[in-house]
């Protein structure tokens, strides 16, 4: 029997470590080209439709920013979680709950208007996402429950709760029985940045601000140090006087709040009402964004734009080439694998071991 082992390299190349995300993108493009060829499409045309076309027009760049906003907001929060060794896989659910909590005012109290409505909605979105993330945090800190499972399962609870709301109690009374809430009034809509040229809203500014603040905290402050120490070694963290239990809550609450903010920003800025489905999987794609950005908030901004491009490209390719929009998911999956593989192979090399039986060679 042959076995494949990963052997740690005694030293890994600094150059390859730096360009690892680019290598991963190149591999993804290559595999994508092969996939399109297998589908009988021209790989060049397909890759052009995917990655170039969306960047050729102004309105399309606006769409890119709209898609990148939730990805960046969520991934920035996830970077705190992942660096501190808290595996929050449920950002999609926190996104949904943030959207629901933030929509309480415009849906249930449409009569309330004024400049205060939007800020209150945003704060409620933050709170909704944070509250939903507190559940897996509490279960982990109190009972040692695996947060990967509990946070992931809560995604489906949140999605079904939203589905029930928009089909039931929150359904628009004047909406001809369509499963959606009433449209938000003007004061509840996040304004557009440059309404002359496209739909991009101020959510993108929030995303950039969040990335800058978290970058500063992680790289320059004692809190960021605490996050990294507890992620690397809980025991050393305890020796340093840090509490791993409190970090569980901190990481989940901050990332949940940012996911919740992403949720209400998406609903208020891009959609304008609640529907049964308000996300094409931003909460999951943001995991890829976080790792492609190397868990560095500034890298995450770039990675968020790239992944947003894959959503737009998917739509473009669907229209111009007639391929399924699921191809975008395939791209994202391949990209995640490539990122992880590139990082792993830079640190380890593959060794194939063929165990030889006890072999006595003839005496010389």
């Amino acid at each position, binding site marked *: 029997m042959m076995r494949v082992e990963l052997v740690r390299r005694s030293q890994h190349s600094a150059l390859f470590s730096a360009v690892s995300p680019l290598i991963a993108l190149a591999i993804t493009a290559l595999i994508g080209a092969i996939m399109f060829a297998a589908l009988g499409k021209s790989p060049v045309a397909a890759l052009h439709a995917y990655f170039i076309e969306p960047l050729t027009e102004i309105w399309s760049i606006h769409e890119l920013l709209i898609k990148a906003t939730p990805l960046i907001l969520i991934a920035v929060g996830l970077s705190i979680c992942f660096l501190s060794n808290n595996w929050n896989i449920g950002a999609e659910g926190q996104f949904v709950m943030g959207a629901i909590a933030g929509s309480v005012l415009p849906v249930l109290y449409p009569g309330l208007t004024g400049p205060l409505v939007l800020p209150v909605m945003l704060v409620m979105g933050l709170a909704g996402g944070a509250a939903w993330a507190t559940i897996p945090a509490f279960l982990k800190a109190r009972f040692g429950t695996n947060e990967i499972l509990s946070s992931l399962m809560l995604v489906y609870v949140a999605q079904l709760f939203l589905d029930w709301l928009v089909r039931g109690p929150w359904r628009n009374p004047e909406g001809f029985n369509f499963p959606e809430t009433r449209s938000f009034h003007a004061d509840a809509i996040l304004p557009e940045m440059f309404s002359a040229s496209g739909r991009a809203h101020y959510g993108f500014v929030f995303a950039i601000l969040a990335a800058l603040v978290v970058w500063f905290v992680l790289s320059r402050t004692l809190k960021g140090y605490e996050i990294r*120490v507890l992620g690397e070694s809980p025991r050393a963290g305890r020796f340093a006087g840090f509490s791993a239990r409190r970090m569980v809550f901190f990481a989940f609450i901050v990332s949940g709040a940012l996911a919740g903010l992403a949720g209400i920003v998406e609903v208020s800025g891009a959609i304008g009402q609640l529907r049964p489905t308000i996300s094409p999987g931003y909460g999951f794609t943001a995991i890829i964004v976080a790792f492609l950005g190397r868990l560095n908030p500034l890298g995450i901004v770039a990675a968020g734009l790239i992944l947003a491009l894959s959503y737009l490209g998917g739509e473009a390719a669907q229209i111009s080439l007639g391929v399924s929009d699921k191809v975008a998911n395939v791209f994202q999956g391949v990209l995640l694998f490539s990122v992880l593989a590139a990082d792993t192979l830079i640190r380890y090399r593959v060794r194939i071991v063929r165990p030889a039986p006890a072999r006595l060679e003839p005496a010389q």
Partner: protein
Amino acid sequence: MKTDVSQSAAPPPLLAVDGLTKSFGTLKANDAVDFDIVEGEIHALLGENGAGKSTLVKMLFGSLSPDAGRILWRGRPVKIAEPSTARKLGIGMVFQHFSLFDSLTVAENIALSLEAGTPLSTVADEARRLGEAYGLTLNPHAMAGDLSVGERQRVEIIRCLLQEPSLIILDEPTSVLTPQEAERLFETLETLKGEGKAILYISHRLEEVKRMCDRATVLRHGQVVAHCDPRAETAASLAAMMVGAEVEAVRRSPADHEAAGRSRTAVLCVSALDQKPLGPFSTALRGIQLEVHAGEVFGIAGVAGNGQSELFEALSGEQLQHDPDAVIIDGTPAGRLGPNGRRRLGAAFAPEERFGHAAVAAMPLTDNILLSRHASDASAYLSGGRFAVLRHSALGRTLGRVVKAMDVRKSGENPDAATLSGGNLQKLILGREFDRQPVVFVVNQPTWGVDAGAAARIRQTLLDAANAGAGALVISQDLDELLEICDRIAVIADGEMSEPLDARTVTREQLGLLMGGAEPEKHHGVAA
């Protein structure tokens, strides 16, 4: 195997190693190593940590494959690709770190390493028979978790003997034993030797090697520096071969000892400290009582796993006490304070595990300086008030100071802790704490796995701290170390501590008896 036995009287040695070389990156862990071992011989493999002993043994046991060189078994070249190959040849290994499942019985543990399908009763009978033959008394139906370290080692030896090896490799077998347990091990080894088995004995304890071993091979920096007859050498000459230079012995001077004896200022006072086991295989602490005076080095001896790490964590504040007065640091009750609260009172701590407890491997040295000092030296390393922004320049200056004071060898300005050798990292960790000029200093296994030069430096620093007026509490398994530097020594056994004894008058036998727990069953009876 049967045909091999008939050849055993033939001239070629049982095992010969010829030009064996193994590199890891640029480091030559073994460089053209050669030695041989004949039947009925106890052969010592001597060397400091990092000299290449483990690499050599791993190649002999098939866990690593050599880059160059030959291994000859009974005169014939062999390729040992994995441990099962080594076992088939007749090479058995008793590891330093035991691999027993605590929740299985002795017989079940042994059965795991045998061919599947051997009935448990057969295993138990066989284990009992071997145990009687070699003086390794053992109850095959006892739970492994309930065994003492010495008993666990016996299980490992029996497990090894069941494979009927002709060569037995023992890796630092006495490092976890009391002097009395070691004595019994030596008797077993003599019996095995009398039967014509070859024993490769890896150790850095020179007295043992001088007493037990017929020949010795000394390794330094991966190369063989000498083949010698250890009985014809002195401990000092063996040490010089291992280290490459004479190592100065660090000793407590009688005058300092006298001065410490007069000191009455308690800087650390522990009374009636009880602690429940922290996990299924952790030791409970019962009624710990001790007082460390200013200017004194107080030693705690004991066999590994008798509550040392639990005691350390109770003192460092990683585990809190119910009663604030259970731990008093420099006159202030600290039982309810965490590590940073205790550090602010002037205490400093250095745990046993360097990577993952005292330091974070994947972080640069300046970050590791901050690990234990971000609270006690907040004004030096943090700015911006509540935002607590790190001051990297101040950390860099402290790093420079520590590196200079402790002679830490590192590559680059501020490399990751992982790149430092064990000894250098330990010097950095202790230097980080000394740099604060603590009032009381608690260290656990300060020189464990550290080369002789660094160990001497670390011991000297502990003495310097005491001479400067601090109290030092040294938890160590190394009796020689404690006898060299301590003023008083107490023994911890099964979570209970003995009365402290004067380090200058106490004998190893007294300490050994206490380390063995002198009838621990009785204590269990009382506790239950």
